[in-house]
């Protein structure tokens, strides 16, 4: 019964969506309406000095959204650790770790972190950047936590990193507010040589902060889903 009504509701909604949006021919619009995107893609190299226009939009043109977005992740991680705290007694690992698995994960760890950092610092040159890079770094930690009993994530450490990265983001923004452009998040540094790592002013720095923040937030969020993520620290902490 419930399925039947849902089906009717969904078909109705779908019909409405298709009849209205389905008529918009999108693949050739863009220029015709003089959208902000066209202006941005024309000006981005001059304005920001970043080779990747998506990055310049994410970090500068719409950097305020990105600040909100890392806040959402921050909230999710916080909420998860609040909700799941002390839910289950500390349990043994899901599987017994073998020597090879442990050593292998230790060997892999620095490379995965390095790869994550590479993705982050090249965010303004190539696809990628803070979000995927942060995920990669978080993954490195999960591999260690999953395979090795000795390593425990310290919840405090994760949240310190998270806070510091968030405050760095805001501090860079406020520096723009105090600078000559007098606008939050304005690019107050020089643009540098186009298409090199230290180009594009504050973009690499903000993206690094985003990367660290996203990485630590995801570590915290997924970590609190693990059976015994933070070990005994959890009972003592807070």
């Amino acid at each position, binding site marked *: 019964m419930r399925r039947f009504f849902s089906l009717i509701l969904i078909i109705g909604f779908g019909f*409405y*969506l298709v*009849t*209205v*949006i389905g008529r*918009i021919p*999108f693949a050739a*619009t*863009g220029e015709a*309406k*003089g*959208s*902000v*995107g*066209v*202006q*941005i893609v024309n*000006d981005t190299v001059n*304005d920001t000095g970043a080779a990747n226009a998506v990055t310049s939009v994410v970090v*500068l*043109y*719409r*950097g*305020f*959204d990105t*600040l*909100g*977005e890392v*806040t*959402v992740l*921050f*909230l*999710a991680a*916080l*909420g998860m*650790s*609040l*909700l799941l*705290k002390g839910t289950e007694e500390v349990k043994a690992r899901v599987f017994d770790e073998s020597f090879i698995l442990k050593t292998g994960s230790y060997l892999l760890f620095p490379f995965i972190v390095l790869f994550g950092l590479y993705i982050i610092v090249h965010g303004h040159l190539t696809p990628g950047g803070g979000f995927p890079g942060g995920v990669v770094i978080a993954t490195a930690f999960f591999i260690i936590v999953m395979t090795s009993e000795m390593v425990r994530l310290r919840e*405090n450490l994760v*949240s*310190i990193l*998270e*806070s*510091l990265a*968030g*405050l760095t983001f*805001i501090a860079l*923004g*406020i520096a*723009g*507010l105090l600078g000559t*452009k007098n*606008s*939050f*998040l*304005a*690019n107050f540094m020089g643009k540098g040589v186009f298409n090199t790592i230290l180009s594009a002013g504050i973009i690499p720095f903000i993206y690094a902060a985003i990367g660290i923040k996203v990485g630590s937030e995801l570590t915290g969020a997924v970590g609190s889903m693990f059976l015994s993520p933070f070990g005994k620290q959890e009972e003592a902490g*807070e």
Partner: protein
Amino acid sequence: MVNPILLIIIPLATAFFIPLLAIVWKNGSRYLALLAALANVLIGIKLLPYVLEKPIHVTIAGFKAPIGIDLLAGPLGIVFSLIISITGFLVLIYSIGYIRDESINKYYTLFLLLLTGSTGMVLTNDIFNLFVFFEILCISSYILVAYNRDEHGLEAAIKYLVLGSVGSLLFLIAIAIIYLKLGTLNMADISDKFDALGGSYRMMVVVLILSGLGVEAAIFPLNSWLPDAHSSAPSSISALLSGFVIEVALIVVMKLVYSVFHAMQVLNALAVVGVITLLVGEFAAFRQENIKRVLAYSSIGQVGLILLALSINSKAGISAAVLQIINHTASKSILFLVSGYFILKTGSYRYSDYSGIAKRMPVSSLLFVLAALSLIGVPPFLGFFSKLQIVMAAAARGSTFYVSLVSLVLLGTIVEGAYFLRIAQVLYFGRQQDTDSGWLETGNAAGIDMESVGNAPVSAVIPVLLLGIVVVFGFLFLTNLNGVTGSIAGEITRALSLASLF
């Protein structure tokens, strides 16, 4: 002049800073959060005179309006961020004594992010940025609803989360249509180009945004989450959720409908929906026994009234609605904050268990009754004047449509009066033997020392008293208030345009 962006940045940075502070000073977040809210109040007061003359337009990252994100701090933005930060500040004072469990740092972080999200929603002038702040607001309220981690709270939070997420999906679809057709996200720019859009697209955008934000604004068919969510959150949080979260969502929706989408054709439908919301809320409240559910349903009723007033399509109506929002914020916060201590002291949610509590908690009970009277609309409280203005604004339209809606509102008011007076009667004249049958001895989970049963602690009474002053003596400042609400009404009814920003 202060940059209005600080209104968003200060609570956000404080929220990020709290985990660091917690390491060196465990309870420091209490006072830090208070400071942040106080700073917002001061900035808001300082900015108010400026924005009443001319809205402040702030660009972010130094890019001009349609390209980058911008904020528009008009009378609406600043007055609402003042409402948010003042309520937040007072509830933070209340929380000092009320929130005593071990995760207080998380509580204050979430609290500040709730303030950030709602302040951002009223200040931003970019529709996707609005979506981001909407998400911050929603997610922090989902978590706060489940803060007690009991079964009710978790159920309510899941229900709220599912409805809210579906709402934000619809909102995103609307943004996609807007960007697809207009190529811009700036509200003023959208407003300039919107009328050139085909009728079906316009209707769809308005419908999607109304139903997306309508979940948070508790408009009638979308408000089934509200009674559960508001009644299972900690009382201090219920005060915020009922006090300004719904109103912020509502006023932002109406701002979009009026000044960005110019969708006057939906206003009549919205007025009807408002009256239905009101009647549903008031009649459901009448049947409840749990005091927090009574208050939550009463909030639905009030939101219906505010929605009706906002849909009258005249400056007088909107101005009256804003006055009613101020009254509702103050009164409903008092009611929730006081009932929080009723519940804590008696360990019971049923208001019939509170018989004669007025002898034990005279100040709180008195303020509870005064706030209830103001919500009903008894003179000379603020609520009387706001309801009077709403009725007058509806009558001024002169059509039978509005007159009949207003008569239904009066019916709702009678019901409202009935259940509030019933509670007041229990508080003051409840049967004496109930006190002897030992309701005072019933335990409570919060670990309050039962020896100290008496009036609520000072930290709880001060904010309630301050809010009480607004409700009781608000009418003395009616002309000032009307000036402010009038300029908000002016801002909402005027169509935004990009040219006027520079």
